[in-house]
């Protein structure tokens, strides 16, 4: 029952997007997010949509699977849209009592929905095509320059790796403990909130105990293999930029140029095309 969470899930496939260097992927995702907020008109969103669809197609992740990640955030998206729709001042086009809808409100709401949707698609595309290990590897390397000002890059990355590594383990463990206690008659399906809350104790106590035990065992195991932090540590799979990464960067530059160009497109330019 807990396994249905798709947040930050990895989708195994063989694709060019999967093969990209994680550093490049992280930086390009950041650039993409900046670009989302640079766009000023629907022509820009058109370009963005085509480019995103192309990347999703390249990644071989089924679009249906991607959109599933949007569902939990649907409420948030709708809320922002509604707030934008009713709270923006401008040219009024509709009025009912104290409710008024403005031209700017409609545009603003549409932009907000598009922005959030693309934002989620971009970030889930990153996690869907990059294993957690490669992701933290990339992050560590990207944060390396900040070591000089005292940022513990390696330690942060290691903590993230361990945390990510243990999410499925702890979920599995919770599932197992829940099953074991259900087998002894624990009632998780009760309508009574108090009873359900009480049923959590037999789960939380063993879960915490096993989490502490695991942490302890992991620390011992790491020490047994002479772990002493990031200094002088080499990697089994060193990150290497390839031609593919250069192509991705070129694609991104082209994309930014297109977006900047699209921003200059106004109705005055489009109008004559239709008439």
């Amino acid at each position, binding site marked *: 029952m807990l*396994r249905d969470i798709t947040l930050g899930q990895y*989708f*195994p496939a063989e694709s060019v997007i999967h093969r990209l260097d994680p550093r490049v992927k992280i930086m390009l995702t950041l650039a993409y997010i900046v670009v989302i907020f640079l766009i000023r008109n629907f022509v820009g969103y058109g370009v963005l949509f085509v480019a995103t669809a192309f990347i999703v197609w390249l990644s071989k992740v089924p679009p249906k*699977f991607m959109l599933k990640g949007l569902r939990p955030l649907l409420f948030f998206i709708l809320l922002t849209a509604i707030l934008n729709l009713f709270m923006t001042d401008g040219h009024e086009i509709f009025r009912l009592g104290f409710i008024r809808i403005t031209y700017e409100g409609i545009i603003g709401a549409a932009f907000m929905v598009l922005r959030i949707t693309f934002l989620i698609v971009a970030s889930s595309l990153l996690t869907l095509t990059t294993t957690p290990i490669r992701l933290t590897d990339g992050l560590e390397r990207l944060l390396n320059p900040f070591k000089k000002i005292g940022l513990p890059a390696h330690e942060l990355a290691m903590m993230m790796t361990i945390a990510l590594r243990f999410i499925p383990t702890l979920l599995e*463990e919770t599932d*197992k*403990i829940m*099953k*074991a*206690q*259900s*087998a*002894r*008659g*624990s*009632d998780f*399906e009760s309508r009574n909130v108090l009873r359900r809350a009480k049923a959590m*104790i*037999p789960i939380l*106590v*063993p879960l915490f*105990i*096993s989490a502490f035990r695991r942490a302890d065992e992991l620390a011992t195991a790491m020490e047994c293999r002479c772990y002493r932090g990031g200094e002088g540590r080499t990697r089994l799979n060193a990150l290497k930029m390839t031609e593919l990464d250069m192509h991705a960067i070129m694609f991104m530059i082209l994309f930014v140029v297109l977006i900047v160009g699209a921003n200059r497109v106004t109705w005055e330019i489009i109008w004559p095309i239709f008439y």
Partner: protein
Amino acid sequence: MLKLENVTYTYQPNGPFEKTAVRDVNLQVELGEFVGIIGHTGSGKSTLIQMLNALIKPTSGKVFVDNVATTEKGANLRDIRFKVGLVMQYPEYQLFEETIYKDIAFGPKNMGLGESEIDRRVRASAQLVGIGEELLEKSPFEISGGQKRRVAIAGVLAMEPKVLILDEPTAGLDPIGREEILCKIRDMHRETGIAVILISHSMEDVARYANRIIVMNKGQIAADDTPDAIFAQVEMLESIGLSVPQITKIAEGLNRRGFALPSGIHDLQTGKFEILKAIEGVKPC
């Protein structure tokens, strides 16, 4: 008592990690049986037994407990779980109470039994698994791993289920401990006439205690027969990564070297008896 009809179970159907763990299984278990289930890791044993007490429901097909289908709307799942007691793998992680007594009493308490009945059951099941009275007021976290295992098993026994399912109850225990626990369970089985289902990786254990063996392979039942009939099919067992008890191999080896031991030697006791009998006939030169 238990009946499975065309039961299939698929993990994450239609997802990228879809995996069918149990495929089209038909099975029936009656009171008084001692069933052993053997199979390679990942053959679907654990998934199968979790369906028997409605912890998971089959993707298709039906599981009947006392003629009630677990998939039926409004079926009382807790009632089913009290009838079919399940001791999961490494059950010691389920301990959570302040004292061992309270932990064993957790199941009976959930059944809504009276104070005196709970007390009787706790003491009886603690005694059965070899947990002394003096331990009952201790914390379950300050006893040894083997003792924790016993307490966890007692926690399920205290519900006095009609069917007791044990998923590798002796994994990771010392030889004396495993013998003791399994012997106690067999004694209880003989006294009370409940059904016991034992999953084990040890052919010796299954051969010794079970009177019916189910062999699982890739989610399906490969064979379902008496121990004698199962362990006669050495090739089939080896082809799916299993084996016969060591004593059976020894008997076979001796027969190839000119002894005439009877077939169907699967546990040490009969093995020892038959080998000694055969050797007496051989005159020392």
